[in-house]
Protein backbone atom coordinates (compact mmCIF):
# COMPACT_ATOMS: atom_id res chain seq x y z
CA UNK A 1 0.00 0.00 0.00
CA UNK A 2 1.37 3.39 -0.96
CA UNK A 3 0.60 6.32 1.23
CA UNK A 4 1.63 9.58 -0.35
CA UNK A 5 1.09 11.77 2.67
CA UNK A 6 -1.48 14.16 4.01
CA UNK A 7 -3.56 16.57 2.02
CA UNK A 8 -2.20 20.10 2.16
CA UNK A 9 -4.78 22.81 2.73
CA UNK A 10 -3.77 26.44 2.16
CA UNK A 11 -5.90 29.54 2.57
CA UNK A 12 -4.68 31.48 -0.46
CA UNK A 13 -6.83 34.60 -0.21
CA UNK A 14 -10.09 35.66 1.42
CA UNK A 15 -12.02 33.62 -1.15
CA UNK A 16 -9.69 30.77 -2.09
CA UNK A 17 -8.73 27.46 -0.52
CA UNK A 18 -6.20 25.16 -2.19
CA UNK A 19 -6.05 21.41 -1.52
CA UNK A 20 -3.05 19.47 -2.83
CA UNK A 21 -2.01 15.82 -2.76
CA UNK A 22 0.29 13.54 -4.77
CA UNK A 23 -0.74 10.02 -5.84
CA UNK A 24 1.34 7.05 -6.90
CA UNK A 25 -0.63 6.51 -10.12
CA UNK A 26 -0.80 8.00 -13.63
CA UNK A 27 -3.25 10.85 -14.10
CA UNK A 28 -5.71 8.97 -16.32
CA UNK A 29 -6.39 6.65 -13.38
CA UNK A 30 -6.71 9.49 -10.86
CA UNK A 31 -9.10 11.22 -13.25
CA UNK A 32 -11.06 7.98 -13.62
CA UNK A 33 -11.34 7.49 -9.83
CA UNK A 34 -12.39 11.13 -9.51
CA UNK A 35 -15.16 11.03 -12.13
CA UNK A 36 -16.62 7.48 -12.07
CA UNK A 37 -19.63 7.09 -9.71
CA UNK A 38 -18.88 3.57 -8.45
CA UNK A 39 -15.26 4.58 -7.76
CA UNK A 40 -16.19 7.90 -6.10
CA UNK A 41 -18.44 5.91 -3.77
CA UNK A 42 -15.36 4.09 -2.50
CA UNK A 43 -13.40 7.11 -1.34
CA UNK A 44 -15.37 10.33 -1.09
CA UNK A 45 -17.13 9.46 2.21
CA UNK A 46 -13.82 9.88 4.09
CA UNK A 47 -14.77 7.08 6.52
CA UNK A 48 -17.55 9.28 7.94
CA UNK A 49 -20.34 7.02 6.76
CA UNK A 50 -21.70 5.36 3.64
CA UNK A 51 -22.21 7.06 0.30
CA UNK A 52 -25.78 6.64 -0.85
CA UNK A 53 -25.67 8.77 -3.99
CA UNK A 54 -22.94 9.45 -6.55
CA UNK A 55 -24.46 10.84 -9.73
CA UNK A 56 -22.14 12.25 -12.37
CA UNK A 57 -23.15 13.66 -15.74
CA UNK A 58 -19.66 14.46 -16.95
CA UNK A 59 -20.12 17.16 -19.58
CA UNK A 60 -20.22 20.96 -19.48
CA UNK A 61 -23.64 21.90 -18.10
CA UNK A 62 -24.09 18.38 -16.71
CA UNK A 63 -25.00 18.02 -13.05
CA UNK A 64 -23.57 15.96 -10.20
CA UNK A 65 -24.84 15.01 -6.77
CA UNK A 66 -23.17 13.18 -3.89
CA UNK A 67 -24.85 12.18 -0.65
CA UNK A 68 -23.61 10.24 2.32
CA UNK A 69 -25.30 8.96 5.42
CA UNK A 70 -23.20 9.40 8.54
CA UNK A 71 -23.22 6.70 11.18
CA UNK A 72 -25.75 8.81 13.09
CA UNK A 73 -28.23 8.44 10.21
CA UNK A 74 -28.21 12.02 8.95
CA UNK A 75 -27.78 12.51 5.20
CA UNK A 76 -25.45 15.21 3.92
CA UNK A 77 -25.76 16.13 0.28
CA UNK A 78 -23.68 18.15 -2.16
CA UNK A 79 -24.49 18.99 -5.76
CA UNK A 80 -23.31 21.16 -8.59
CA UNK A 81 -22.85 21.69 -12.29
CA UNK A 82 -19.86 20.94 -14.50
CA UNK A 83 -18.46 24.00 -16.22
CA UNK A 84 -15.43 22.58 -18.00
CA UNK A 85 -14.15 19.04 -18.59
CA UNK A 86 -10.72 18.33 -20.06
CA UNK A 87 -10.31 14.52 -19.83
CA UNK A 88 -7.35 13.52 -17.62
CA UNK A 89 -6.45 17.21 -17.13
CA UNK A 90 -9.08 19.37 -15.49
CA UNK A 91 -12.59 19.41 -14.05
CA UNK A 92 -14.27 22.72 -13.24
CA UNK A 93 -17.58 22.51 -11.38
CA UNK A 94 -19.73 24.31 -8.88
CA UNK A 95 -20.31 22.78 -5.46
CA UNK A 96 -23.28 23.54 -3.22
CA UNK A 97 -23.64 22.13 0.29
CA UNK A 98 -27.27 21.20 0.85
CA UNK A 99 -26.98 21.58 4.62
CA UNK A 100 -27.09 25.38 4.54
CA UNK A 101 -29.90 27.80 3.57
CA UNK A 102 -29.88 28.76 -0.12
CA UNK A 103 -27.16 26.27 -1.19
CA UNK A 104 -26.91 27.39 -4.83
CA UNK A 105 -26.38 31.05 -3.96
CA UNK A 106 -23.56 29.92 -1.67
CA UNK A 107 -21.93 27.51 -4.12
CA UNK A 108 -18.18 27.51 -4.64
CA UNK A 109 -16.37 27.05 -7.95
CA UNK A 110 -13.97 24.12 -7.75
CA UNK A 111 -11.13 23.51 -10.20
CA UNK A 112 -9.47 20.09 -10.00
CA UNK A 113 -6.21 19.84 -11.94
CA UNK A 114 -4.32 16.60 -12.63
CA UNK A 115 -0.58 16.87 -13.36
CA UNK A 116 1.62 13.85 -13.99
CA UNK A 117 5.39 13.51 -13.52
CA UNK A 118 7.30 10.20 -13.50
CA UNK A 119 4.09 8.19 -13.27
CA UNK A 120 2.90 10.11 -10.21
CA UNK A 121 0.02 12.55 -10.24
CA UNK A 122 -0.42 15.77 -8.32
CA UNK A 123 -4.04 16.64 -7.79
CA UNK A 124 -4.85 20.22 -6.85
CA UNK A 125 -8.34 21.37 -6.01
CA UNK A 126 -8.86 25.11 -5.93
CA UNK A 127 -12.05 26.04 -4.07
CA UNK A 128 -13.20 29.56 -4.88
CA UNK A 129 -16.06 31.22 -3.06
CA UNK A 130 -17.88 34.02 -4.92
CA UNK A 131 -17.44 36.28 -1.91
CA UNK A 132 -15.83 36.40 1.49
CA UNK A 133 -19.32 35.99 3.01
CA UNK A 134 -19.81 32.68 1.19
CA UNK A 135 -16.37 31.51 2.24
CA UNK A 136 -17.26 32.41 5.82
CA UNK A 137 -20.62 30.58 5.58
CA UNK A 138 -18.78 27.52 4.29
CA UNK A 139 -16.24 27.65 7.07
CA UNK A 140 -18.95 28.26 9.63
CA UNK A 141 -21.02 25.26 8.49
CA UNK A 142 -17.84 23.17 8.27
CA UNK A 143 -16.93 24.09 11.80
CA UNK A 144 -20.35 23.08 12.99
CA UNK A 145 -20.02 19.75 11.16
CA UNK A 146 -16.62 19.21 12.72
CA UNK A 147 -17.98 20.07 16.10
CA UNK A 148 -20.87 17.65 15.56
CA UNK A 149 -18.35 14.89 14.71
CA UNK A 150 -16.52 15.52 17.93
CA UNK A 151 -19.74 15.49 19.95
CA UNK A 152 -20.82 12.22 18.29
CA UNK A 153 -17.49 10.64 19.17
CA UNK A 154 -17.80 11.87 22.72
CA UNK A 155 -21.28 10.37 22.95
CA UNK A 156 -20.03 7.04 21.61
CA UNK A 157 -17.25 7.04 24.14
CA UNK A 158 -19.73 7.79 26.90
CA UNK A 159 -22.00 4.95 25.77
CA UNK A 160 -19.05 2.56 25.65
CA UNK A 161 -18.26 3.37 29.26
CA UNK A 162 -21.69 2.23 30.49
Amino acid sequence: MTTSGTATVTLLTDEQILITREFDAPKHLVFKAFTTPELVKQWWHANRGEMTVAEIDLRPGGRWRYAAVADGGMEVGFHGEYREIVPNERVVSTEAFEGIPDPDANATLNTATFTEADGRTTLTILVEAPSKEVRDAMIDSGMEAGMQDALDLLEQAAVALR
Partner: protein
Amino acid sequence: MARAATTADAFNAVAEPRRRQILDALAAGERPVNDLVRLLGLAQPQVSKHLRVLREVGAVDVREQGRQRLYRLNGHALKPIHDWVQEYERTWTERFDRLDAVLEDLKQKEEGDGNDD
Protein backbone atom coordinates in the same frame (compact mmCIF):
# COMPACT_ATOMS: atom_id res chain seq x y z
CA MET B 1 -23.78 35.88 14.46
CA ALA B 2 -21.12 37.01 16.89
CA ARG B 3 -19.21 33.80 16.39
CA ALA B 4 -19.44 34.04 12.61
CA ALA B 5 -18.07 37.56 12.64
CA THR B 6 -15.11 36.64 14.84
CA THR B 7 -14.30 33.62 12.72
CA ALA B 8 -14.52 35.58 9.51
CA ASP B 9 -12.18 38.23 10.74
CA ALA B 10 -9.58 35.78 11.94
CA PHE B 11 -9.66 33.97 8.58
CA ASN B 12 -9.35 37.24 6.74
CA ALA B 13 -6.37 38.10 8.90
CA VAL B 14 -4.39 34.99 7.97
CA ALA B 15 -5.47 34.81 4.31
CA GLU B 16 -2.88 37.49 3.50
CA PRO B 17 0.64 36.04 2.96
CA ARG B 18 2.41 39.02 4.57
CA ARG B 19 0.26 38.75 7.66
CA ARG B 20 1.08 35.06 7.87
CA GLN B 21 4.77 36.03 7.75
CA ILE B 22 4.24 38.43 10.62
CA LEU B 23 2.47 35.74 12.65
CA ASP B 24 5.31 33.30 11.91
CA ALA B 25 7.87 35.84 13.06
CA LEU B 26 5.93 36.57 16.25
CA ALA B 27 5.52 32.86 16.95
CA ALA B 28 9.20 32.92 17.90
CA GLY B 29 8.61 35.67 20.45
CA GLU B 30 7.73 39.28 21.04
CA ARG B 31 9.20 41.80 18.59
CA PRO B 32 9.26 45.55 17.98
CA VAL B 33 7.92 46.91 14.67
CA ASN B 34 11.42 47.67 13.41
CA ASP B 35 12.32 43.99 13.60
CA LEU B 36 9.28 43.10 11.52
CA VAL B 37 10.06 45.83 8.97
CA ARG B 38 13.56 44.40 8.55
CA LEU B 39 12.39 40.78 8.41
CA LEU B 40 9.67 41.37 5.84
CA GLY B 41 11.53 43.94 3.77
CA LEU B 42 8.43 46.14 3.63
CA ALA B 43 8.00 49.82 4.41
CA GLN B 44 6.94 50.58 7.96
CA PRO B 45 3.48 51.98 7.00
CA GLN B 46 2.65 48.68 5.27
CA VAL B 47 3.80 46.61 8.23
CA SER B 48 1.80 48.85 10.55
CA LYS B 49 -1.28 48.38 8.37
CA HIS B 50 -0.98 44.60 8.58
CA LEU B 51 -0.39 44.78 12.33
CA ARG B 52 -3.51 46.88 12.71
CA VAL B 53 -5.60 44.20 10.95
CA LEU B 54 -4.07 41.52 13.15
CA ARG B 55 -4.71 43.58 16.28
CA GLU B 56 -8.33 44.17 15.34
CA VAL B 57 -9.05 40.43 15.34
CA GLY B 58 -6.95 39.92 18.46
CA ALA B 59 -4.34 37.80 16.65
CA VAL B 60 -1.58 40.01 18.07
CA ASP B 61 -1.30 42.07 21.22
CA VAL B 62 0.83 45.17 21.67
CA ARG B 63 2.46 46.81 24.66
CA GLU B 64 4.56 49.92 25.10
CA GLN B 65 8.08 49.65 26.45
CA GLY B 66 9.83 53.00 26.61
CA ARG B 67 9.57 54.39 23.09
CA GLN B 68 9.06 50.96 21.54
CA ARG B 69 5.85 49.16 20.75
CA LEU B 70 6.28 45.43 21.20
CA TYR B 71 4.02 42.98 19.38
CA ARG B 72 3.30 39.42 20.40
CA LEU B 73 1.20 36.59 19.06
CA ASN B 74 -2.13 35.75 20.65
CA GLY B 75 -2.66 32.14 19.62
CA HIS B 76 -6.08 31.96 21.24
CA ALA B 77 -7.62 34.23 18.57
CA LEU B 78 -6.32 31.93 15.84
CA LYS B 79 -7.65 28.70 17.31
CA PRO B 80 -10.92 28.68 15.28
CA ILE B 81 -8.89 28.77 12.06
CA HIS B 82 -6.51 26.13 13.22
CA ASP B 83 -9.42 23.89 14.20
CA TRP B 84 -11.26 24.41 10.93
CA VAL B 85 -8.24 23.88 8.67
CA GLN B 86 -7.28 20.81 10.67
CA GLU B 87 -10.75 19.30 10.29
CA TYR B 88 -10.90 20.14 6.58
CA GLU B 89 -7.41 18.70 6.07
CA ARG B 90 -8.36 15.57 8.01
CA THR B 91 -11.42 14.98 5.81
CA TRP B 92 -9.41 15.35 2.61
CA THR B 93 -6.54 13.25 3.95
CA GLU B 94 -8.97 10.43 4.73
CA ARG B 95 -10.59 10.78 1.30
CA PHE B 96 -7.23 10.66 -0.41
CA ASP B 97 -6.04 7.69 1.63
CA ARG B 98 -9.12 5.82 0.39
CA LEU B 99 -8.41 7.10 -3.12
CA ASP B 100 -4.92 5.54 -2.85
CA ALA B 101 -6.59 2.16 -2.35
CA VAL B 102 -8.92 2.71 -5.33
CA LEU B 103 -5.92 3.65 -7.49
CA GLU B 104 -4.01 0.51 -6.44
CA ASP B 105 -6.98 -1.55 -7.64
CA LEU B 106 -7.13 0.35 -10.93
CA LYS B 107 -3.40 -0.07 -11.51
CA GLN B 108 -3.57 -3.81 -10.90
CA LYS B 109 -6.58 -4.13 -13.18
CA GLU B 110 -4.78 -2.23 -15.92
CA GLU B 111 -1.70 -4.47 -15.59
CA GLY B 112 -3.98 -7.52 -15.69
CA ASP B 113 -5.64 -6.23 -18.85
CA GLY B 114 -2.21 -5.68 -20.39
CA ASN B 115 -1.17 -9.29 -19.73
CA ASP B 116 -4.32 -10.58 -21.37
CA ASP B 117 -3.37 -8.98 -24.69
